[in-house]
């Protein structure tokens, strides 16, 4: 197993090296650089060049690449040209916001989608299923950029219960932070919850056709015990697969939600860095994405090898 793992390392490293060259080169193909943005529209050519020199952008691309790569190897991600702060710090702050939002939305979606899915799968009263089904359809049909605006109009502008925009870290002031979190998390979670509810409802209905459920009823188990101890656990596996696929989409949706609610997460950071040609941040963020992908991919391969000896032998 160790030998297999060691054999996987060189290809992973090669991917990272190639990726570092690509993420360094591609942003530079677009015209304009950070010096143009920093110098502004009224700067003279001399000032523009002086700013470019200060940023080190007048050095050859090879030197710039070597300096960046050397920094990465020593744990220094560089300093943002535009934000004038360490890239690691900027990425860390933004990542904190994105993770907070995504995790909160995930939990909320699981709670809402889980409850709705079980209700749709189990409850037999038609009026109740119609109401829940209708709510699920609405949640499914509402993209975050619509539900976000509606939530803001209702809860922030009309009844002034929750803040319209902004972010407070949970560790700084939990009471306030939760209020800032409710609407963005709800907005992001709704379509996800709707998908979850539909899959769970279908899965629950399928499980309820099973003989062991009938046996449970015949044995006189309470409905609640039957549902939560027997039906739901057996209905979950296919839903978990969907959950895994949807998490990636949740991260994508977070970019839109962050923009609506004025959060400065990873999406906001990446978009601004690209627009302002903040190469250091663009390179770091793109490479970070590649690293995550390579690590996950490598771990998946290792997991496959661990459970299936044929993979190890073939390799």
């Amino acid at each position: 197993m160790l030998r297999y793992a060691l054999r996987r390392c060189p290809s992973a490293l090669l991917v990272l090296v190639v990726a570092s060259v690509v993420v360094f080169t591609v942003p530079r193909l677009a015209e304009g650089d950070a010096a143009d943005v920093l110098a502004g529209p009224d700067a003279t050519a001399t000032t523009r060049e002086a700013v470019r020199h200060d940023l080190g952008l007048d050095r050859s691309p090879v030197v710039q690449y070597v300096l960046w790569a050397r920094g990465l190897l020593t744990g220094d991600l560089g300093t943002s040209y535009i934000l004038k702060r360490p890239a690691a710090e900027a990425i860390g702050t933004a990542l904190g916001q994105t993770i907070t939002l995504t995790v909160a939305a995930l939990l909320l979606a699981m709670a809402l989608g889980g409850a709705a899915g079980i209700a749709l799968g189990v409850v037999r009263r038609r009026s109740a299923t119609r109401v829940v089904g209708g709510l699920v359809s609405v949640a499914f049909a509402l993209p975050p950029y619509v539900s976000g605006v509606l939530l803001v109009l209702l809860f922030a502008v009309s009844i002034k219960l929750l803040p319209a925009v902004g972010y407070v870290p949970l560790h700084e002031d939990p009471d306030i932070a939760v209020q800032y979190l409710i609407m963005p998390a709800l907005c992001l979670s709704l379509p996800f919850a709707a998908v979850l509810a539909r899959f769970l409802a279908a899965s629950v209905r399928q499980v309820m056709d099973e003989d062991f459920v009938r046996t449970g009823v015949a044995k006189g188990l309470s409905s609640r015990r039957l549902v939560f101890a027997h039906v739901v656990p057996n209905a979950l596996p296919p839903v978990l697969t969907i959950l895994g696929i949807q998490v990636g989409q949740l991260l994508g949706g977070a970019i839109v939600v962050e923009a609506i609610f004025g959060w400065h997460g990873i999406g906001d950071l990446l978009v601004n860095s690209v627009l302002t040609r903040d190469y250091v941040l663009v390179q770091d963020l793109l490479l970070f994405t590649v690293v995550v992908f390579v690590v996950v991919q490598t771990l998946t391969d290792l997991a496959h090898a661990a459970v299936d000896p044929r993979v190890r032998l073939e390799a």
Partner: protein
Amino acid sequence: MPQHLFPRPFGRRAALAVVGVVTAGALAVTGCESAVNSSEQPSGDKKGGSLTIVQSADIDPATFLAQNNPNFSVIRNVFNTLTAYDHDTLQPQPELATSWEQSSDGRSITLQLRDDVTFHSGRPFTAADVIFTIKALQREDVISQLKHVALAITGMEAHGSHSVTLRLNHPVSNLFDLFEMTPIVDRQTFDDLLAGRQIIGTGPFEVVQYTPGSGVKMTSNDDYWVKGRPYLDAVNISVQSQSQSMLSSLQSGQSQLALDLAPLDTVALEGDPNFQVVESEASDAAYYVGSNVTIPPLDDPVARQGIAWAIDRDRILDQALGGIGETSSLPWAPSTSPAFDAEKAQTYSQDLGKARQLIQQAGATGAKVNVAFNSGFPTNQAIAEIVQFNLKEAGLKATLVPLQEADFLAKLGTGDLPGLFVNVHGFGQLSPATLVKGAFPFNADANASNFDSDQYRRIADQLWTTTGEAQAETTYDQVNDFLLEQQFISDLVVSTHTFTISTSLKGVDYNMYDYLNLDNAYLSE
């Protein structure tokens, strides 16, 4: 159906439990300290309270010595300038400089400075700080549109701690523009300022936290030299890139002041008694169409005049700018610039017949013309679309070329924009020299249009070095006639920066470069 085997899986009790959980959650939220009202604490008297400002872009400490819109909220509140123009008389008034005396030949000025001012670090403000700030402006890597004035200062002498003489190599007409626009920086922390690490000034508020990309937190400066000021305990600046988010923040009561809300969002607040939209008298946001005069048919002034006649300025004012500003063919601010001429400002208005005739005369009918714009600004895009439509009406084949900000600025700086370009310029509000020497689109020495003319250079230098009023009047006529004829920049609408203010916030002021001044601001019930 197996479901029928279930008697009542979830009865009333379960439904009540769900309602109970939701109610408990709602009560928990309403029972907590409110995030909506935590920023505003109105009190009976003026003292106290925390103000939240929203703006669309982040501040940039490296450009505090230049006029850079996102910095408007911070500069005058953390720093002070030497003088400040009176809005009515446009005469400079004392700020850090208490009085001044200019030599009769206009080649030197001696400033007396306040002796009761300290920086936020506790260090006293002296003449050395004034000298340091002007020297900083002269540095190549420091950005300022008034660098040409700083470079004209060839000698500086301190007389004791609170008096300084500046010597110039020739008289200049915009010296007080320099004093109005330039904050006096702390020489001991200037490098930290450029890097955004430490922001130390002499102003009414101290920066306690600056999070790049996110916002600024400031608290009142207890040792501020204006006694009894500021009233506010704290000011928070929040960066919200979406104008709609800024509007929501205002409407929800989360913030009390928005800088430069998108014009069409400002219209949404019309008639709302809870808000007031203050349009700055500075009128230094003039929207224009520039021409790269090296690209045919824009190399012919007759074709450029045809384009100027083709554009529907009224439509741009109404539909793209929400009626904020006034149509004008000149770059000057109507209410404050000495060069503004009301009659000449209306030289060009849409006349498609005249436009087609001039374009035909230039042999440009059917010619292809690119209209470039910065795609990051929806207002510029809206104007570009109207311009494109008008040019098609006038017989040109116009194509829109949206460019990302960095690309647009790079091409603007190198004169490589591919034809016409829609943009906005400032510096039309005070001394006309500041526009023709400092605003890049009009810079007579090098500009975005590649417009090169000895006559224009002469007029620009004359504007800069003429200090006598009678002589200046003649030069204003010359520059107006020249700009109207050449049309390498066709001004469309002279608009302005706006401050959208909640009625609970009083006493908001700004200087003639639109730097927000919160010395006298307070929150009321």
